């Protein structure tokens, strides 16, 4: 029970800090907006092309923005060595990961859902009719990105080339999230907009495997 109460306290702190500064949400939103607008103007896709290629583009933008968003997750804890203070105060270090990955999932999901509407307008794709289904796919994809991103953020924050290391590690590792997320999103833009459980199953499996690995080995990622 202590794990969940500590996670709740830390999650509240993460949300409080972000909603005060808006640093991550602003950066990620602006990045995704730029990608969406630039691609729209460069290729000027038809509605059919948008449904075909849009989901891939959207998820690539989400992925790159996530690497920006996850970077400070543990890096900011090094500024004043607050990570040590947390490790001294908390008996189960998984609470630190759980809080950070929950916060990252929430930030990513907010950004994605806001930018989805912009995507709908620029690419002439009806997104509102499948909004709940899209939100579900986005949640599973975001959870996978956040779990992996949070773990790698802990690793990269201790490395020498920490600014460039996270994207280099994160992007290849997230291919198993990118493909099913893009495919499941694409299916929702089809006329009958089915929920593709084969792709969603892959996403759920990825989330479960990486969450379990983080729970088992997370403690070692925080060691000096």
């Amino acid at each position, binding site marked *: 029970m*202590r794990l969940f*109460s*500590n996670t709740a*306290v*830390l999650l509240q*702190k993460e949300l*409080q*800090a972000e909603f*005060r*500064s808006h640093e991550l949400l602003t950066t990620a939103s602006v990045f995704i907006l730029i990608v969406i607008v630039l691609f729209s103007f460069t290729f000027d896709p038809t509605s059919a092309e948008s449904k075909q290629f849009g989901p891939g583009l959207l998820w690539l933008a989400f992925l790159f923005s996530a690497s920006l968003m996850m970077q400070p997750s543990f890096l900011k804890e090094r*500024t*004043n*060595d*607050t990570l*040590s*203070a*947390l*490790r*001294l*105060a*908390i*008996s189960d270090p998984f609470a630190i990961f759980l809080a950070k990955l929950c916060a990252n999932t929430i930030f990513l999901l907010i950004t994605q859902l806001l930018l989805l509407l912009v995507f709908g307008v620029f690419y002439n794709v009806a997104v509102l009719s499948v909004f709940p289904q899209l939100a579900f796919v986005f949640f599973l994809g975001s959870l996978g990105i956040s779990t992996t991103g949070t773990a790698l953020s802990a690793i990269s924050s201790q490395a020498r080339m920490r600014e460039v290391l996270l994207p280099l590690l994160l992007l290849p590792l997230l291919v198993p999230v990118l493909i099913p997320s893009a495919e499941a999103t694409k299916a929702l833009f089809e006329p009958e907009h089915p929920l593709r459980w084969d792709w969603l199953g892959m996403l759920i499996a990825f989330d479960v495997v990486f969450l379990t690995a983080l729970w088992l080995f997370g403690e070692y990622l925080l*060691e*000096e």
Partner: protein
Amino acid sequence: MSQRVSRPAGIKLTRIEKKYGSLYALRRLGMEIAAGECVALTGRNGSGKTTLLRVASQLTRPTRGELSFPGLDNGEAPAIGYVSHAVMIYDELTAEENLVLFARLLGIPRPAKRAAELLEATGLATRKDSPSRTFSRGMKQRLAIARALLEEPGVLLLDEPGTGLDTESMAWLTATIRALRDQGRTIVMSVHGESSLSQLATRAARLEAGALIADTRTGATFQSVFATGAA
């Protein structure tokens, strides 16, 4: 899972080694600190003082050797208050929010009340709603000490607690550590040379290249530990 207890405990370091790559930060270091002792650790930069304190606080796992806390029963772990070079507080949170956050994580009942007590004791009550990024070094250090004292720990590990403090803050810090020492808490602090802080110590130890080269309690050799390292 161990239960954290606030009563003073000893610290026993047995043949502790810590290597970073091929570099030895600590070399087969053995030291037994009794409960209630106040130890001043001294030595040049890079002599291993910080590593020793981090190993004792269990933040860093030694490469070899054993750390134990005499005076505690099986299943008990000491509540440790740790103050490092970095202030270990969140710049974006206010003084009060910082203390309440850590009090809640530690499971302290009525965290707001405990935070208020410590803000009063550290003279920060009037600035409790200010973000700590607006604080001077001395005020941040007071807040760092308040955070370390939240749990009323029996063991205090202070890594150069006087760094960057002005005369007034240093006087406050000296008085605070004296009071904590007199309450019987085990204190280990790293210091640079002789100062008002080193005078509080009941035992002085000097490290050189990760090894303990001098360790004395009282008498004529005590002051020399801070001077040249001979003892």
